[in-house]
């Protein structure tokens, strides 16, 4: 459903995505793996149209998204819910105001129902009691759960999670991983794209995995393909060793 066709992205002299082609299927949980700085966040910002490719095109549901004008782009984005890597909560708004924000902007439901929905999604991320707090009073783990609640509020067709469990303790991580699976199981139409370093979670949760390396796809397939891969880069990523073909710079 989402296709990258020969996408290149450069910042100044630095090439982050290098002739990248990939496919993200509809209705599944796709994990995007890759080491830090590999361009994972850049990749999903391209999907949202928050960044534009230097070359190549991105097709979503058969449409080239770089051809959208501002108005079309806004309409297109309503299909998505996105959790940002650093949560990106509005720090002048309370937790409740943050989560209700997309509902108020686009929703047509009465205010009472909006508040019910806010309670519901905050319950889902395990933070029912913090509605009146402000982002600067929260830990990074809590912020990200609020960000997740905000992304879920509109019940989007496509969910993008940028490192949903980074900065959380093992128990909460587990809970969030289960939540991703649950949300996806509850809606067979929903496409989930998860960026992660967490291999264990990827193998347990993913239905499809894409591993990025040097701006290209190193390997893509189901978890078993990764378990049995003999590719040196994939093996090194799995073993977590510093020695190997992967360069850290």
């Amino acid at each position, binding site marked *: 459903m989402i296709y990258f066709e020969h996408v290149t992205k450069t910042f100044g002299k630095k090439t982050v995505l290098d002739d990248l082609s990939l496919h993200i299927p509809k209705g599944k949980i796709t994990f995007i793996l890759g080491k830090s700085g590999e361009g994972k966040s850049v990749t999903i910002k391209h999907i*949202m149209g*928050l960044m534009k490719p230097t070359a190549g095109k991105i097709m979503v549901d058969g449409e080239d998204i770089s051809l959208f004008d501002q108005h079309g782009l806004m*309409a297109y*984005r309503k299909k998505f819910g996105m959790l*940002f890597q*650093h949560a990106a909560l*509005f*720090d002048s708004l309370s937790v409740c105001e943050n989560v209700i924000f997309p509902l108020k902007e686009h929703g047509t439901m009465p205010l009472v129902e909006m508040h019910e929905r806010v309670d519901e999604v905050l319950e889902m991320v395990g933070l029912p009691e913090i509605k009146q707090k402000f982002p600067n009073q929260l830990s990074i783990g809590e912020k990200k759960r609020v960000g997740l609640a905000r992304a879920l509020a509109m019940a989007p067709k496509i969910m993008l999670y940028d490192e949903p469990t980074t900065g959380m303790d093992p128990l909460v991580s587990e809970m969030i991983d289960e939540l991703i699976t649950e949300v996806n199981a509850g809606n067979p139409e929903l496409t989930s794209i998860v960026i992660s370093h967490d291999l264990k979670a990827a193998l347990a949760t993913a239905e499809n995995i894409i591993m990025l390396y040097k701006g290209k796809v190193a390997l893509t397939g189901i978890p078993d393909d990764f378990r049995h891969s003999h590719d040196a880069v994939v093996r090194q990523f799995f073993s977590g060793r510093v020695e190997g073909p992967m360069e850290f710079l």
Partner: protein
Amino acid sequence: MSSYIRNKSTLLFSVLGLRIIKGVSRFGAFLLFCWETVKHVFRRPYRFELIAQQIEFIGAQSLNIVIMTGFFTGAVFGLQLGGIFKIFSSEAMLGGATGKALTRELAPLMVAFLTAGRSGSAMTAEISTMNVTEQVDAMEAMAVEPLSYLAVPRLVASVIVFPLLTIIFIFIGVIGSYVIAVSLFDVDVGLFLDKIVWLVEPKDIRDGLIKSVIFSVIVAFIACHSGLHATGGAKGVGIATTNAVVTMLLMVLASDFLVTYLQVRW
């Protein structure tokens, strides 16, 4: 030797040319930004609540300082002019002269300077912080137009608040000069007021308020534009904010000259 000089001057010209092209294209981009923002003013959703918040923010933040500055500006002007008018034994003119100067020039300009320093900088800092921490991206990701949510309320609020503050500044300034006139130059109260009414015409008030609206637009546009284009973390926020305030002050002064020229000539 001559080819060396020619090369050097070509280099100079090409560097200069490049600078000019860059400057012009940046100014063009800025104008485009302004135009887009103006279009959003008239487009749904109308964000009355946010506008009210911004009015309160700008107004409340700048009111005290506008009152204080207004009083002292009027008083100092009264002192300076009083000394001159005394030579001609026409101290009663003091009120009129101060009133005229305040209305046409000092009030709109001082209000723009004070508000640029107080609220313009705060606006830039707030928006650029949102920008470098991806809050603006998040807003776009939720299909909300940052121009409509962030820029429009600040623009509209500025256009409303600047003239109001200008009027307050004039009023307080006149009181300041009145205190000086009565206490130091023994001017009669009735005469003082008479001369103001005689010298300050409705046209002066109109011209002053037009200036104030123009300054408000300049401050708001520069604040929002700098904020939405800030990059590079906390340091970037600092750079964007100082640059924005300097640009605001220069642009306000330049446009003040232009507008005054047009107003005086026509």
